[in-house]
């Protein structure tokens, strides 16, 4: 039986373990020695000492000394340590060995942790980007994924300024319309970068192609980020790393009209529409009159109802008279809600090792206040990593991380949040009325926006807490000279708990009498992973062989619940519990749990001949619960090869060339994308709103009903990615310049796509299953280079650059689809901005292309027929040339994918001073400035307008205008359809950080028992160069889990706010 056979290897593996772990070693001899640095003869602690071609080995202690039992036939030992060239020493007799290690100037011997194993950088044949963790850590941020930006070629990261907010992380472009999030492996266990303490990170590798990632099979299709956290190394030490600083709101904001300009726009709007201007606040007549009060509407000082004694608080009712003064100058809403905010982070860690054990312990406190009022991330975390060598050949250990965070968030990139309301709320409105209650659009004639200050202040007592645990326990056994068996069991448990209160926003035009309500909820997410591997490592002459086989099981289980009540007697937070609300308003809901299981077997062979010819093969067989029994298993192979040309005789004489390797590979990855976990099944659903009905006419209760919720598909199986990668790594000019360039092609076929029924809506509302259909293709080039410069012994510098480019193209869609329109969760008032269509990149903007504004009647007459065409309105391009503007003239006019993104790290050290800077940029991407929909068209709800709308809009006397005519009509030729009017260039270059540090002379410090003391000052986001007119061109998707549309500005929490910090790093 097929299923049983897949389990046999696990069984064999177990049996093998029993046999081998109990076998004893015979015929041994003992050697000892000392490892020192060639530079200053200081001992090298924690260097690895192994018998060549075997797993038999140990580490040096703090004095650089070691002893090792070796087989009697052992001939050579290999000594390796980070930062030093490897050394091989022949074993002669039993004399103590002394090894002097030379410092390395190239990082080729650097050990890089890849999938389930580790390799020397020079041996890598797949595409692996090694992140410079120090460079990365220099950017202050609460989330670790956000600071990967620009640090690894091939990785694109889009951030926002929201503390603790998510990022769009994409490795080699968008490989799925659903989630394109890479797999994150932390110490061998799947995890998340989001809440990781960056100070705990030892190394980060990004596995980009199939050669590197195929070992992760179906989880590797979006790329894999492999994180190793710190282990104790060498003598015991305590470090303290901290910074504290201030984040500054953007000085400019949205460039909006003030009160008199706002009134002027209303007047222009009426006049342009042929209507006599008349406004509840600004009166009527030739020009607007700014009143003294907005409630009573348009009142002057001394008018009836303006006496404070006449103040009546009774929202929605006829006698309501919440007297509010007009803000004649204009309220700067943006700067009322964006205030300077503090950021601080403190990490204390203790670590150390002996030849038998090592430990690393750290605690971190991070507090990032957001510049937007009442947004913050507070996180407390601790990590304990330990390893014990029980015997020379047995190691056990654990990695454990716990954290607790408070991170109430806002819905970023959404038309209804406080950020968006800063450009919607008219400037004449003050924050408070005369009695200190909030003022707002409830005053007559002032649109329907919400008071953004009130919105954020009402968030103050909301809670959103998460705590999580992640990590693993593991054991390793070396046996029979060449074998290592490892078992690891780990996972993550994460709980979140939140509540929030919806106040009655009495000051607004809408919802001012809604009942208040309280919502409380909680979620549980868990995942365990059990991995067993067996490694064989041998060197036979020039043949270097490494074989790995393994099995892995993974189980995911998530669920959540939420409840609410309304009509709270008081809004006092001390009163908020579910029980104190009105029981007749109670509502509760629980999601269906998400369940997923994976079982996998995998194997890997790495072979190299004479350090010159490299060959590697991987195969993984994955089984997943989301597919039906017969389509559950998939095989994912890859083959890669490399040739270190510089090792060839004919290049030996080329002095400027230190290293040159070409490599290439082909492989297959899989993905379950964001397929529903119950995809194979046809299921009936029930839902209070969707299928209940008040059949008895009771007014307040409904009978339960069912509906066929989804059609299953038992034929659905893996999405398949075929990746081809060709790369070149070189080190030249006396090891001064390293660079790496790669070209890749990633073809994703059998895209897991929710089927569109051939008969469209006739099928009803039953959800279609995901099927395998449609193809996407990404191609691109990754480039990275580092130059190590030495001007003098005191002045050294390093420059590292990375460049990432991808071109994603939809190749085909499932049958029945010519295209798919993608609406955004940020706002859908003028339909979808994005269309997915074969031949186009993912995310391409689709709509009417604006040629300009109709100058005059003559211009209208000579142009193609267009509904509602008139001077001062948009002139659309007649794409099909039929003389008539219709739906058929919509076209692709923009691409949010950049031509390339790039990062540049500069590090200079002069004596005890150091300086570093990091620049990041994105080039050639288009963005949609949807804010203009609200601020350039007063007929859109009548909120505030841009200065451009006042001074650059079309008038009969201003026909070369950039903004359309301000008018009362909304129609096809101005606001009701999506057009290229909103498109802008999104390229930018940002100075992400710049810092100057000073390290105190060590001689002075030693007297105080301090090994190292460095202080620094830093500026983050010092400047951004861009032509974009909005706040910030770095625009992530409004729904981070949906990659179909992004680069659209709904009023984004800007990521480019300046941040000034001082920091310190001390080691005892």
């Amino acid at each position, binding site marked *: 039986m097929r299923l*049983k056979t897949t389990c046999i290897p696990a069984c064999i593996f177990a049996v093998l373990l029993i046999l081998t772990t109990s076998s004893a070693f015979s015929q041994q001899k003992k050697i000892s020695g000392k490892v020192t640095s060639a530079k200053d003869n200081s001992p090298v602690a924690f260097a690895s000492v192994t018998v060549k071609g075997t797993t038999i080995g140990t580490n040096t202690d703090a004095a650089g000394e070691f002893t090792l039992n070796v087989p009697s036939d052992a001939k050579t030992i290999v000594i390796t340590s980070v930062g030093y060239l490897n050394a091989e020493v022949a074993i002669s007799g039993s004399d103590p060995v002394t090894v002097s290690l030379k410092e390395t100037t190239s990082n080729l011997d650097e050990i890089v942790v890849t999938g389930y194993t580790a390799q020397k950088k020079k041996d890598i044949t797949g595409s692996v980007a090694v992140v410079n963790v120090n460079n990365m850590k220099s950017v202050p941020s609460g989330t670790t994924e956000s600071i990967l930006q620009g640090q690894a070629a091939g990785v694109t990261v889009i951030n926002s300024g929201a503390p603790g907010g998510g990022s769009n992380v994409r490795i080699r472009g968008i490989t799925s319309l659903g989630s394109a999030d890479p797999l994150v492996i932390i110490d061998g266990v799947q995890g998340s970068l989001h809440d990781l303490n960056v100070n705990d990170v030892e190394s980060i590798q990004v596995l980009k192609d199939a050669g590197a990632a195929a070992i992760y099979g179906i989880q590797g299709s979006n790329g894999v980020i492999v994180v190793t956290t710190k282990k104790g190394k060498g003598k015991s030490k305590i470090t303290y790393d901290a910074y504290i600083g201030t984040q500054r709101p953007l000085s400019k904001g949205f460039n909006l009209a003030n009160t008199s300009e706002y009134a002027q726009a209303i007047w222009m709007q009426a006049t342009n529409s042929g209507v006599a201007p008349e406004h509840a606040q600004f009166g009527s007549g030739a020009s607007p009159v700014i009143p003294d009060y907005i409630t009573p509407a348009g009142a002057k000082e001394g008018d009836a109802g303006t006496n404070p004694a006449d103040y009546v608080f009774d929202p929605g009712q006829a006698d309501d008279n919440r007297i509010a003064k007009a803000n004649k100058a204009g309220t700067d809403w943006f700067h009322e809600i964006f205030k300077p905010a503090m950021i601080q982070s403190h990490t204390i860690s203790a670590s150390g090792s002996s030849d038998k054990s090592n430990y690393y312990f750290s605690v971190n406190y991070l507090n990032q206040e957001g510049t937007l009022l009442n947004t913050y991330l507070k996180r407390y975390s601790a990590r304990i990593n330990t390893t014990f060598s029980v015997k020379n050949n047995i190691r056990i250990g654990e990695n454990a991380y716990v954290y607790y965070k408070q991170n109430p968030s806002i819905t970023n990139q959404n038309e209804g949040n406080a950020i968006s309301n800063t450009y919607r709320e008219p400037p004449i409105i003050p924050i408070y009325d005369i009695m200190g209650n909030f003022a707002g659009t409830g005053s007559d004639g002032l649109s329907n926006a919400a008071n953004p200050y009130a919105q954020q202040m009402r968030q103050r007592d909301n809670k959103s807490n998460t705590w999580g645990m992640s990590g693993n326990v593991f054991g390793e056994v070396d046996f029979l000279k060449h074998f290592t068996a490892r078992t690891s069991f780990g996972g993550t448990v994460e709980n979140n708990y939140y509540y929030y209160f919806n106040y009655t926003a009495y000051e607004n035009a809408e919802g001012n009498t809604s009942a208040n309500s309280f919502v409380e909820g909680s979620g549980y997410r868990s995942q365990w992973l059990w991995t067993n591997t067996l490694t064989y490592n041998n060197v036979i002459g020039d043949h270097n062989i490494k074989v790995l086989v393994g099995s892995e099981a993974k189980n995911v289980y998530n669920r959540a619940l939420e409840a609410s009540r309304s009509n709270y007697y008081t809004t006092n937070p001390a009163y908020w519990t579910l029980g104190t609300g009105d029981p007749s308003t109670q509502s509760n809901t629980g999601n269906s749990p998400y369940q997923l299981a994976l079982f996998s077997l995998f194997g890997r062979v790495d072979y190299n001949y004479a350090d010159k010819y490299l060959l590697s093969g991987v195969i993984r067989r994955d089984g997943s619960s989301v597919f039906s029994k017969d389509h559950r298993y998939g095989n994912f192979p890859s083959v890669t090869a490399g040739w270190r040309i510089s090792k060839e005789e004919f290049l030996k004489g080329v002095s400027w060339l230190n290293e040159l390797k070409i490599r290439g590979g082909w492989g297959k990855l899989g993905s379950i994308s964001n397929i529903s976990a119950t995809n194979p099944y046809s299921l009936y659903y029930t839902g209070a709103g969707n299928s209940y009905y008040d059949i008895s006419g009771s007014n307040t209760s409904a009978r339960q009903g069912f509906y066929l919720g989804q059609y299953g598909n038992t034929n659905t199986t893996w999405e398949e990615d075929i990746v081809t990668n060709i790369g070149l790594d070189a080190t030249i000019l006396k090891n001064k310049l390293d660079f790496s360039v790669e070209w890749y092609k990633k073809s994703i076929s059998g895209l897991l796509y929710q089927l569109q029924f051939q008969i469209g809506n*006739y099928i009803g509302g039953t959800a279609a299953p995901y099927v395998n259909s449609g193809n996407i293709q990404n191609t691109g080039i990754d480039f990275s280079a580092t130059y190590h410069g030495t001007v003098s012994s005191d002045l050294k510098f390093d420059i590292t650059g990375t460049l990432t480019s991808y071109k994603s193209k939809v190749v085909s869609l499932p049958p029945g689809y010519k295209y798919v329109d993608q609406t955004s969760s940020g706002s859908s008032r003028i339909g979808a901005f994005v269309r997915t269509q074969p031949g186009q990149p993912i995310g391409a903007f689709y709509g009417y292309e604006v040629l300009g504004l109709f100058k005059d009647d003559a211009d209208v007459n000579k142009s193609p027929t267009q509904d509602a065409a008139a001077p001062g309105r948009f002139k659309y391009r007649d794409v099909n040339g039929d003389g008539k503007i219709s739906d058929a003239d919509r076209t692709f006019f923009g691409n949010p994918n950049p031509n390339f993104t790039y990062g540049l790290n500069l590090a200079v050290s002069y004596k005890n001073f150091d300086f570093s800077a990091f620049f990041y940029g994105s080039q050639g991407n288009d963005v949609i400035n949807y804010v203009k929909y609200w601020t350039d068209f007063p007929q859109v709800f009548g909120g505030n307008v841009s200065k451009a709308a006042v001074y650059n809009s079309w008038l009969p006397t201003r026909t070369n205008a950039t903004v359309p005519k301000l008018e009362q009509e909304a129609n096809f030729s101005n606001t009701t359809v999506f057009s290229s009017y909103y498109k802008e260039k999104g390229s930018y270059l940002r100075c992400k950080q710049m810092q100057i540090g000073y390290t105190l002379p060590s001689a002075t410090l030693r007297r105080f028992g301090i090994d190292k003391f460095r202080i620094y000052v830093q500026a983050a986001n010092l400047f951004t160069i861009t032509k974009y007119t909005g706040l910030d061109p770095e625009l992530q998707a409004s729904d981070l889990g949906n990659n179909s549309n992004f680069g659209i500005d709904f009023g984004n929490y800007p990521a480019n706010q300046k941040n000034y910090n001082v920091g310190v790093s001390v080691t005892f």
Partner: protein
Amino acid sequence: MKKNKFRYFIAASSIAGGILAVAACSKFLDKTPVGTLSPTVVYNKSGVEGILIGAYSLLDGEGGNGGGWGSAASNWVYGSVCADEAYKGSTPSDQGDIVPLETWTATSTNGYPSGKWSLCYDGVQRANEVLRTIPLAKDLSADDIKEFTAEARFLRGHYHFELKKVFNNAPFIAETVGVDTKPEEVANVDANGNYVNIWPQIIEDLKFAADNLPETQTEIGRVNSWAAKAFLAKAYLFTADYTNAKTVLDDIISKGQTSGGKKYDLAAFLDNFDASKQKDDPEIVFAAQMSVNDGSGTSGTSNGNYGDVLNFPYNAGPGACCGFFNPSQSLANSFKTDANGLPLLDGSYNTGSLISGKTSPYAGNVDPRLDWTMGRPGIPYLDWGLVPTDDSWLRNDQGSNGRFIPKKNVYYKSQKGSLSSTENNWAATQLTANNVNLIRFSDVLLWAAECEIRIGDPEKARTYVNRIRTRAADNTTWVKMDNGNYADKYKIGLYPAGSFNDKTYALNAIVFERRLELAMEGHRFFDLVRWGTASATLNAYAKYENQIKICYIYNSLQTFTPGKSEYFPIPQGQIDALNADGKTNLKQNPGY
């Protein structure tokens, strides 16, 4: 030895693990879906009943596929805004998709018709699912089968009826249509490329329901044979089959009763729009039942009247949002009555002063139904006080929406929180338990009057119309000020004997009566199309509104295109999907 213990520990745990892996492997990857029902669980009587309730639940226009205000049960956009009854309201670009509909320039990518299309076909398929499940449930009695089949076919007939009214050339989807159905099998054209007419199938479904349903039901929201007959009569009327229509209507008028067993009769006019009374009102032939505070409010697709949440006064009163669906000046004017209390059938109501005009408002007689149909400045708005005369309950800041606000879908202040939602929903204060009346008995009487004029007895027609006017003339139900005086000069009279002998006059009187009686209830546009008078009526309306410039939408002249504007465009996405193979399986309506 201590060291060896660890070795054995690892070895042992590996063995245990290996054994576990083997044992668990075969089942490890089988995950049973949780929180859902597998088909076998519902293939029984209570399952079929539940699926039937699921089919009813889309009567409210929300909850399934599609949805939104474009699929509102009340058809306020298509039936009233696209006719001469109401303006879109709100600011010009708010719900911008309504603008081209209101001005008869919509294209096939408009989101509103698309929502209606999807929702109705979802309703059709939910009804079909009942029919498909019945044979699979083995514990059904013959009576159960008859009852469930009849109710399901009624619902399927109703959803198709909606599609027919709005799109005309929508195909009929039978219970045989499923995942494997090919587009050509559900084409809206025949082999010659001519549109397929689905009236026969709609009538067949409704007739089956009428013949097989019981006269009363234990639940008042469940359809009975009389309600099915009323829909059947309506279908006959829409196909101009007056003979069949009259037969059914006569039957209904003489013997019809509600599902609750009340003989059909006219109730007080205002009770039809009061959630505390309408549910079991003898006048309600069939309604989409709405409920609030039933646990569905937070879901976004609540069981309250979500389709009409925009249609409330702005910023105050019962609503606070969103200022849509403002009755037109033309509609208000049409409530003017002459010295005898009769409407101005000659169309002169639009000449002279305006009802509630800002300057020199009309001061003559008005039909008392005016103030139950719309909120007017200075007139009591249910129990919410007077509508302010400064128009502050309207959303006029970006262009005028006239002076009136909707009223028939609005709840009383005394009902706030009990018949309006208090749940955590952005539109809670406008989410109501007010039913959407799909057929009222007065509608039935006016159909009967129409049939009598066309093929029967004019005096009988006059009696029907006068029965409705008599009800409206009950001065105990007229709107009164606090001081007990009537809010305006109400005057309503009856058509005198013999006045209906002039068939043209009589038909005009019936048409006008429908306008007054059923205003703002989403019927007008479909009536105009049925009568073939849409183009003349609506172009005259647009011209008048353009002259008075009271609503910003009519600042430029709109035109209704005969032969096109009678029906709404079939959603482009559906045309693209159904015709993906290059064949025209779904043919767009003429003119689009």
